[in-house]
């Protein structure tokens, strides 16, 4: 009998020749943009500071806010809201997606309703949330959770519907059913698609955070945006946007690391 070692051994030669090469490659365009930005605001002087302040001034604005502790508070509360909202939405999505994905009865009963709710553009809930919950912390977290819920729900639901029926039958034939079948066969099988859903949900969470904070808030990055707009502080406005980009990318990368670990174990 021959050994068919089909495991892809990657391409060691190329991977070793460029340590961190991909990071350098990915950083090229942002650095280029930064250079252009500096060029058109500084030496070329094409824009007034109220139109487009220089990178240095944005950095100064950040350092200024850092000194009086305001930046820390803005970032902290925004991250907290995203985290809570994402967790609430993702957990609800996992539970409801599992229920509808596994039970034909629950699917028949609830899927049309969930589908109808999904058809409502999520921001349309804002006025209702304002009236019912108020736009305090609870309202914001709820809005973010709504944004995070649907990608997770959809991915779990459809992945569970498409688990290889052969594997499920084999599991049943060896005496697995109910929760044991779920944790032994069905959940591990859906790990890869569920992670795509989770990453989409995280991006949605940041989107809905800004929406919630733009509407009504006294702190947070969305508040910093709207306040800077009102005060004509374009430097702070750009700062908030850059921070959102960095935070969004960082949280996505963290989730990506967890995803890679999970895929190594489950796929």
């Amino acid at each position: 009998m021959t050994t068919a070692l089909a495991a892809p051994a990657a391409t060691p030669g190329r991977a070793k020749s460029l340590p961190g090469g991909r990071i350098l490659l990915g950083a090229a365009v942002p650095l280029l943009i930064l250079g252009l930005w500096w060029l058109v605001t500084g030496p070329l002087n094409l824009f007034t500071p109220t139109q487009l302040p220089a990178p240095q001034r944005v950095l100064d604005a950040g350092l200024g806010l850092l000194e009086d502790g305001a930046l820390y508070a803005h970032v902290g509360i925004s991250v907290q809201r995203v985290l809570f909202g994402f967790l609430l939405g993702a957990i609800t999505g996992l539970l409801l997606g599992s229920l509808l994905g596994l039970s034909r009865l629950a699917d028949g009963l609830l899927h049309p309703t969930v589908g109808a709710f999904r058809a409502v553009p999520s921001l349309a809930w804002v006025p209702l949330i304002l009236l019912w919950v108020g736009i305090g912390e609870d309202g914001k977290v709820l809005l973010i959770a709504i944004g995070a819920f649907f990608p997770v729900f959809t991915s779990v639901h459809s992945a569970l519907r498409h688990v290889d029926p052969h594997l499920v039958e084999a599991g049943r034939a060896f005496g697995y059913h109910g929760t044991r079948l779920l944790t032994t066969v069905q959940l591990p099988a859906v790990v890869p698609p569920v992670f795509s859903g989770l990453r989409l949900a995280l991006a949605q969470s940041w989107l809905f955070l800004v929406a919630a904070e733009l509407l009504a808030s006294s702190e947070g990055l969305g508040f910093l945006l709207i306040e800077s707009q009102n005060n004509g502080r374009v430097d702070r406005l750009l700062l908030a946007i850059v921070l959102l980009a960095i935070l969004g990318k960082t949280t996505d990368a963290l989730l990506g690391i967890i995803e890679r670990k999970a895929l190594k174990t489950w796929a």
Partner: protein
Amino acid sequence: MTSAPAVDRRQYAAASTQSVVPPESVAAESLSVTFNDVGRAFDGRTVLRNVSLTVTPGEVVAILGSSGCGKSTLLRAVGGLDEGFTGDIVIGDSPVTRYDERTAVGFQEPRLLPWRSIRKNVELGLPRDLSKSEGQSRVDELLELVGLAERAHLRPREISGGMAQRASLARALARQPGVLLLDEPFGALDALTRLKMQDLLLDVHAKTGTTVLLVTHDVNEALQLADRILLLGGRGTATAEGATVKSLVSVPGIRPRDRAATDLAQLRSELYAGLGVSSR
């Protein structure tokens, strides 16, 4: 059709006579299977009808028939994977139950969980009431038996199709089934690997003594492995009224049989004729 070199066979014969005493933990209490007027229809279309026979404990019965004749359907019914049949199937002294614990199925595809190592896949077949240490030593023995001890840490995608089927066989044996149900388990393998798997199955049967029901469309495989061959088919070539027992024949000779034996030629051509194929 294929035939193995005679040298190979003699070696194997020697190997399996040496191990007459079954090791404690892979030995099973083999059970009888009684079919009483079993039939099955899907959406009003009859696939199987009036199947009656008794398989004695420890016997190897091959279920032979052309594709779509209901061989697998019959096997699934014994395993409790299908409850839509009519008539009675009795295992030992009680009727078959849903996902019957007294049986174990070796599917046509290995159906291993791709995210688990071979060892963890074999563990899947262990009965739940077994202690952890007992389970581990049984898995060790089975991996040894199917020759996968060295590769137990690998994932299913890292091994060949033949090895995957051996892992699947070990998983089925892990619950010490009273009846082992094999659904064309070697059908997707290449000819040479298939012969080796047949020898392995005989070895396993010699060691465990379990009753084996083997679905196959390979006449030579049936002749090589079975005590008796159940030929399923319809009247003539039309199967509109469903397949039933066309013939039930005992295979002469003691296993392991010589693959090149001439005394089976008559039976072989009869079976081919029964399948509607000319053996010439």
